[in-house]
């Protein structure tokens, strides 16, 4: 049974891989912004390391945001979403696995890539661990909330930006906890509270987001 859901996720990964673009470009995108930022800043290591946590987080968020639109839109446009809905698959689970596919493509690489960005931005080394851990907790939330947004804006031509507008306010608190955690660590404080909050949010989104997205899809297909 799980195999059938997994097939959806696998198929998305395969299609992304085919287009090649899908896989390495969010990373290149991130890297480019990280390069551009110091260029625009024209500043030394000090200012950079101060803004580093915020920047890493904004980057992870952006990389996710610009790719969200397609989570469901492509499936809707070529008619395969109608196909899923008509099988006996549970729609919330389909959403979950679509989000998993998105996370594997965009979220996970961002997590693995974070240390590189951190080095480029002179983040204190002590904070690397917490940076990665917090990203690991937060990126699935991004993908899940993104799935909700994507489901809501399915049949809008330029849903991309509306999507961001819908999703960003919901992700702002996550950003606060996450960047806060890194900041605390780099100031040698404990980041436990922040990480706990992140975990809590993750659990909450894991349970609620698939339901919300499934409801949105149902309405949209009507």
């Amino acid at each position, binding site marked *: *049974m799980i*195999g*059938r859901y997994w*097939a*959806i996720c696998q*198929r998305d990964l*395969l*299609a992304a891989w*085919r*287009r090649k673009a899908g896989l390495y470009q969010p990373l290149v995108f991130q890297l480019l912004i990280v390069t551009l930022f110091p260029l625009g800043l024209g500043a030394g290591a000090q200012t950079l390391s101060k803004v580093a946590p915020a920047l890493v987080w904004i980057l992870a968020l952006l990389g996710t945001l610009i790719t969200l639109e397609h989570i469901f839109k492509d499936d809707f*446009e*070529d*008619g*395969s979403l*109608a*196909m*899923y*809905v*008509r*099988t*006996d*698959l549970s729609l919330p689970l389909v959403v979950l696995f679509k989000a998993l596919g998105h996370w594997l493509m965009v979220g996970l690489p961002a997590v693995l890539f974070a240390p590189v960005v951190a080095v480029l931005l002179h983040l204190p080394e002590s904070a690397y661990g917490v940076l990665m851990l917090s990203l690991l907790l937060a990126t699935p939330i991004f993908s899940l909330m993104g799935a909700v947004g994507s489901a809501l804006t399915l049949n809008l031509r330029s849903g991309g930006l509306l999507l961001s507008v819908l999703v960003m306010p919901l992700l702002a608190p996550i950003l606060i906890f996450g960047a806060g955690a890194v900041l605390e660590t780099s100031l040698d404080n404990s980041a436990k509270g922040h990480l706990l909050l992140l975990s809590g949010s993750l659990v909450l989104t894991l349970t609620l987001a698939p339901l919300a997205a499934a409801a949105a899809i149902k309405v949209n*297909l*009507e």
Partner: protein
Amino acid sequence: MQQIELNNVVCQRRGEALFKPVSLTVGRGELAVIAGPNGSGKTTLLECLAGLAPFASGQCRYKQQNLASDWARESHYIGHKLANKAALTCLENLHFALTVSGHRIDENQLLDTLEAVGLAGYEYQLASELSAGQKKRLSLSRLLVMDAPFWLLDEPFVNLDHAGCEWLYQVLSEHIGQGGAVILTAHDQKKIHEMAHHHIELEPAS
């Protein structure tokens, strides 16, 4: 009885009824053709039947019950949107459709099916690089492997060449012969009207 019953159903777009109430009962072994001029609501009716949109009024029942997951599993819908994934090859497309709908998969059967629909030699070509008729054939190939008794087909003959139409006639009549049922829309296909057990002509609501 395994039959789908439409009882005075009406579909709407932008809040307006599209056609006069329609009643229809299609049982196993029957073929129904929905006809009507452009914009009369054939596609909309099929989409409602496929459960992708609600009927505006009237009842629609399958096995004496309201449409439910039973119906979704035992019917297969191919609309104007063909549900082929552009970035996958023909073989992968078929494979995926089967996996998702929970069927056992046998590679050889898939290859045979693609050959039967005239896509031999295109197994490893991306769906986005097929010709219009080939795309149609790819989506029709799903019918052959999904073994759903009820087929809902929106203008299935469009883009097919002469041989393709002949082949589809044959597939349809075999399916019906084996106790399947088909509801399809078509323009100007005399032959399908000769085969059909039910003819529905959608008439403007007012």
